[in-house]
């Protein structure tokens, strides 16, 4: 009797609650709708973010300035010199590999997925993705690309040979240039590169076509030593379309400041607290002092010590810091005392302020590409003329006085000589690509000029020529990394990427 009661009561209660729960289950699932973040986003905000992310992690970043800028001896470390001693900091390598793949690259890929066809920002996304991927492959050689960016659909993407990556870049840039007509698209202010110019939709698209072709030319020349025929063919193709024609075409991004600020300022020069870790390299400063290059005062600030009321005879206006030193025990050769931070030149505010721009590519670089192509006989025109124009464009970009430009071009060592043309181009590129450090580093590796030697405390006898793979790939994508490593041979910092012969 009692058990019956229990049973009945239990059943009634159970069915009551079970019923409640069942009809509640839809509502219950609704509770988990995320009120904080959207599930779909238009391409515009993705493109804006990806482009800012791409340049934040390149130009002036801990990545570019932690490695390439030191190794190409534009800058030197004054605080934590490991990278300058040719011991790349593994955590930084890993951070940037991770940030490239899971940051900008992924957002550009998402734009391409959701903007099927040429509409929307698919064209610019294709261009920017190519720009970014080239930066990555130039540092790491073989990288995951064709199987990358697929999330849980492929947890272990295989590595593509650099040659394959380059082929794909050429294809992407060709496709982008041919599809960005301006019709049906309005990139508008979501485009951080040209959006500020407030152009018509057609003109904005035209700028992107110029950028696509100019980047195509950069990529084409980069493989000049690995596959000259392909290099020439792609270069010819690129230059056949519209390319940069003046500094007005320069592709760069302006930083608003605050949290969205020039990474060089954020990471190295005191936008956030007292971080003050680098100075311009002694090699670079001394070279520009010797050549009387008027860009020195555009790039470098006079030393603080030289401007203090108490400045002594030892406090010279421009002084670079030597690369590859364990900084703690550096003495001032003049006074014999410990060196102070104020004794060395920092970059100018045009470079390191919160709002200083970050460049994707400049007109002068395109002219240097043309100069080299002409020197190699791949295109028509005078190599000397392109060379002079390139230097002029670079100096104009930095607002050098025209008289100073003329005087510089007239210097005997500067005047173009076909016999030493490639070296002159290489040297001038080294100077003009200041502030596009990874480009300078890539071109230095390709052209092997100027001759750079590591500093005295460096642990390797030569300047590193490639980036080591991050440890995280070894733990999470080991077999593919192993395959790529054995395919490339030496993948430590003294190895060479495919195009670097």
């Amino acid at each position: 009797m009692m058990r019956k009661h229990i049973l009945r009561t239990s059943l009634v209660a159970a069915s009551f609650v079970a019923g409640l729960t069942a009809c509640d289950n839809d509502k219950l699932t609704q509770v988990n709708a995320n009120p904080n973040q959207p599930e779909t986003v238009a391409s515009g905000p993705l493109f804006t973010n990806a482009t800012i992310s791409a340049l934040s992690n390149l130009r002036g970043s801990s990545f570019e300035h932690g490695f390439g800028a030191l190794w190409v001896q534009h800058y030197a470390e004054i605080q934590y010199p490991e990278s300058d001693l040719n011991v790349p900091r593994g955590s930084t390598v890993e951070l940037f590999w991770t940030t490239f793949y899971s940051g900008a690259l992924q957002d550009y890929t998402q734009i391409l997925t959701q903007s099927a066809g040429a509409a929307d920002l698919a064209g610019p996304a294709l261009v920017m993705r190519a720009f970014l991927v080239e930066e990555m492959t130039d540092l790491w050689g073989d990288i995951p690309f064709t199987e990358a960016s697929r999330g849980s659909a492929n947890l272990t993407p295989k590595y593509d040979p650099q040659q394959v990556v380059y082929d794909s870049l050429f294809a992407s840039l060709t496709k982008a240039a041919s599809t960005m007509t301006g019709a049906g698209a309005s990139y508008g202010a979501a485009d951080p590169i040209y959006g500020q110019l407030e152009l018509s939709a057609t003109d904005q698209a035209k700028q992107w076509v110029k950028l696509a072709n100019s980047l195509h030319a950069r990529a084409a020349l980069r493989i000049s030593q690995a596959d000259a025929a392909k290099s020439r063919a792609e270069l010819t193709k690129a230059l056949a379309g519209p390319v940069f024609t003046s500094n007005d075409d320069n592709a760069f991004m302006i930083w608003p400041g605050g949290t969205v600020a020039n990474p060089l300022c954020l990471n190295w020069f005191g936008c956030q607290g007292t971080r003050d870790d680098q100075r311009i390299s002694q090699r670079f400063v001394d070279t520009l002092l010797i050549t009387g290059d008027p860009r020195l005062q555009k790039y470098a600030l006079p030393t603080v010590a030289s401007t203090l009321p108490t400045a002594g005879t030892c406090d010279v206006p421009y002084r670079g810091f030597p690369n590859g030193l364990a900084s703690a025990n550096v003495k001032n050769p003049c006074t014999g005392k410990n060196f102070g931070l104020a004794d060395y030149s920092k970059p100018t505010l045009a470079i390191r302020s919160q709002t200083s721009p970050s460049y994707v590519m400049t007109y002068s670089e395109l002219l240097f590409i043309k100069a080299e192509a002409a020197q190699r006989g791949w295109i028509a025109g005078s190599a000397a003329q392109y060379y002079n124009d390139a230097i002029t464009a670079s100096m104009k970009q930095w607002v050098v006085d025209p008289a100073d430009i003329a005087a510089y071009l007239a210097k005997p060592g500067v005047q173009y000589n076909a016999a030493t043309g490639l070296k002159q181009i290489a040297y001038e590129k080294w100077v003009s690509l200041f502030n596009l450090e990874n480009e300078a580093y890539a071109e230095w590796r390709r052209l092997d000029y100027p001759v750079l030697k590591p500093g005295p405390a460096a642990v390797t006898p030569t300047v590193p020529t490639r980036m080591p793979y991050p440890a995280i790939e070894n733990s999470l994508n080991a077999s593919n990394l192993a395959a790529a490593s054995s395919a490339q041979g030496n993948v430590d910092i003294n190895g060479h990427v495919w195009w670097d012969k």
Partner: protein
Amino acid sequence: MTSNLYRMLAGAGLMLGMVPAMASAQQATTVSGRVTNEASAPVPGASVSIPSLGVGSYTGNDGRFTFTVAANRATGQNVSLVARRIGYQPVTAAVTLSGATVSHDFRLSTATTQLEGVVVTALGLEREKRSLGIAAQSVQGSDLNKTQTPNIVNALSGKVAGVKVVGSTNFGGSARVVIRGENSISGNNQPLWVVDGIPIDNSNFTNTTQARGYGGYDYGNATQDLNTEDIESVSVLKGPAAAALYGSRAANGAIVVTTRSGKGASRGFQATASSNVTFDNISKLPDYQNGYGQGTGGEFEYLDGQGNGNGDGTDESWGPKLDAGLMIPQWFSNGQPAPWVSHPNNVRDFFRRGTTVSNNISATGSGDRANFRLSFGAENMDGIVPTSNLKRITAGINGTASLSEKLQANASVQYVRNKANNRPGTGYDELNPIMGFTWFGRQVDSRQLQALVTDSTLQAYNRGQGIDFTNQVNWNYNYHNNPYWNLTQNQNYDDRNRFIGSAQVQYKPTSWLTGMVRSGSDFYNNMRANNIAQGWIGGFTDGRTNGDFTGGGFTNETYFVNENNTDFLLTAVTTPLERLGLTLNLGGNRRTRSENQRWIGTDKLVTGGVYNMSNAATIYPAFQYDERRQINSLYGTTQFAFNDYFFVDVTGRNDWSSTLPKGKNSYFYPSVSSSLVFTDLMPALKIGGLSYGKLRGAWTRVGSDANPYLLATTYASNAPYFGQPRFTLPATVSNPELKPEQTQAWEVGTELSFLDGRAGLDLTYYTKRTTDQILTASVAPSTGFTAAAVNAGALSNKGIEVQLTGSPIKMNNGFTWDVTANYAHNTNKLESLYGASDTYLVGSKFFNTSIEARVGQPYGSIVGFPFRRDSATHQLVLSSSTGTPLRATTTTILGNIQPKWTGGLINTFRYKSFDISGQVDARIGGQLYSATNAWGKYAGILASTLQGREDSVTVSGVLANGTPVTKKVSAENYWHGQGYNSGDEGNIYDASFVKLRELRIGWAVPQSLLRGMSAYRLNVALVGRNLLTHSNAENIDPETAFSAGNQQGLEFGQLPATRSLGFQISVTP
């Protein structure tokens, strides 16, 4: 209070198989009496039963009990009548069931062993401990509060076997408690806290930056809101079996707190009051060197503190010899030479003595049909860092009323306010004073820093040197702020207002059925403000900003947390067979939790001193986060009790969770447990002094849901770019297929009592294994993501727990010596992870060191760089240029945070009106990484860095090519090579410690001295905490943490450990 209800339910006999006899027209026998203690005071809540008949009841507030035995079962036979209460020795009396009434009074004496009696278990049900098939250990409120610990979590330390408490030296900071080892790789590993049947929130809301030691404040765990003075008892339900009925959050065990109520009060109105004062004095500081001051290469000369003098930009102490008669320009001397002398107490001088004052009053009232308790507590803590202060006010009321024979209601409300000012920063943070003393010029006089903090003459001198930071005067302007400037100019304050309330009604329509409905809510808001004054040197981060702040700034964040639980429970009790009691429970729960966070801030002010968004010069985007989750549950339990010595419990629960995908969000989890009191089954086993023996065993499986919002991919936003919105794909791949994670556990144990309770042993062996863990597993970044939400991995624990209790001495003159010892050993192992990955990073790196879960290892490997060693000779490989040992190229496991064993030893002596008790805690084994030591070596502030200063350090090893070499290395280069960016292995320390945790000398003032107050008792006591510490870790206290999260075993800049001494006085009826 809740327990009152359950006592009634239980009193109806549901748990024990004690079933009240059915009303009978024939002649029933009424059994009644009174239970008192040794002091003749009534003992409420004692169970009195006739086990052979399965009938019984509980005593009321007056200690009286009464129940009836049906006529058909009262046949004039002799039976045993047993009275039990936890904390007392059970007493059995023989009575004869004849006639209409049987009367018997019991006098219970206190027991040392707590193997028998009533404990509070899941759902607030009070259970005879003998009937439990699981390990549960209780701590009485009075034991918890012996030495006045502000944080209840710390108070548990050393008292319960298998409960690992990690305290910290952070002021008002977090304490972490883990029972039987970590279950979850990335989720919460702390037990569920339940107060009077209502689960309460124990969130920390520390951001990941703070948790990994990169700065920020430790605001403490939210359960520290509980006032230990209000606590009647704490039951620790260790395994998941113990807590299957609380739902998945109790997979890590449950800590069930019962607060004091009016139920034990005698009739009428009574009041109690207590007062405590404790003083905290520094017991351990790093061992600093006083031989050499600031500088590099043995040189120093101050010009502007920014590097333009000779080594004056540095914040290291590799400068000239101190106390050698040198005259050197310094930060305070306007460019003039000043004596270069040591100040050995410059760090100690910065701190003050900490003081905690707490006062509590409470009142209870009790009548025929109702009782209540009112309480009020106020606590004021002044920390050892000047200006740091924490105030806590607690106020509570609870009451019970019997509205009719069948209807009872009770309700409680508790209000807590926690208000802190100027918490010191933690970790590697300019707002942590110890950070500033690690990067330090050892010659600096902190008294002088205080005196000259805004000295106008020096400010004028500084302006002449081009120094921007002229709001303050300091010894260095490259990196650091004057610590006194921090104290006086940068205010931080936080304020938590909390209500915990519940109401319940129970209805008992017939003798065998009870219904209950209860609703409880835990609600708090927590405001945290942090102001940085103009003239601040150095960046600042709170996890959301990473800005400049030299122009001043502030952050202000608010958390709103609300958890509601509504339960119903139907209980039916029957005795289908003689000697077999059967109890059925059917219940349901609906749990909702919401959390809302808001944040605003700026890193630059227009005008100094006004910390309001209207005065912001730069606008950071505001942050907003809202979260809701809900779980609906149904559960049932069945208990069989056979003859009061064999018990079987079967439970089952089904949850429907909002955080799992539809179709996979319903999951069922069962448990079975059993207990056999074999000494009752076969009294012949009572040999060798054995007076009580029990075997128990339990098996359980518990399912857990996910955190909200892991199922769908959503886009994160970033700060707009010239007004253009920015969104990005997240770094974690969502997973619409998530399923619940599973913990399976079993345990066996025995409880033995000897010599009538003079000695006891409680022994448990357990294993548990959590699989299908919901975690964000690392995936190769080339997938486009860095992590994926997956079900993967298995983490297992197994171990033993031993608790020994005894009364070695119990003399007739009243002298007693009681001992409790507990010991726990746990073996934890990560069995598998996700895909190819064999390592999971817990939190993120702290400098080069990380805490990781590695397959095949216990949870919490400390991973970093060892020194590089020659593969053949195992000798150190030295740098060919400097001679310092090089670090290896890859990281490896350098240690593990898991201790080998933990234990506690509590001795209590009583003689007449005196009692003395002491507790020693031990945590043996495990390691930690100490960045205080790493940077202390690097910066040359530690005494150990005196080695080689005058000459050099001789280092032997081999070159990279294997050539043996012995080199002389300057002390500066050598010690730089022992700190950051070198072998981290040199900064791994043994985390073992033994502490004299508690010492108390109490005196119950004799009534004869209390003329006119004879109704009250007065107790006074001297108390001490953390009086002695033994450890092998240099310069630090190894009991350390940045926060209560999973990322443990890292140390930097801990506040100095303190020794507390205090005085208690209490007045009770």
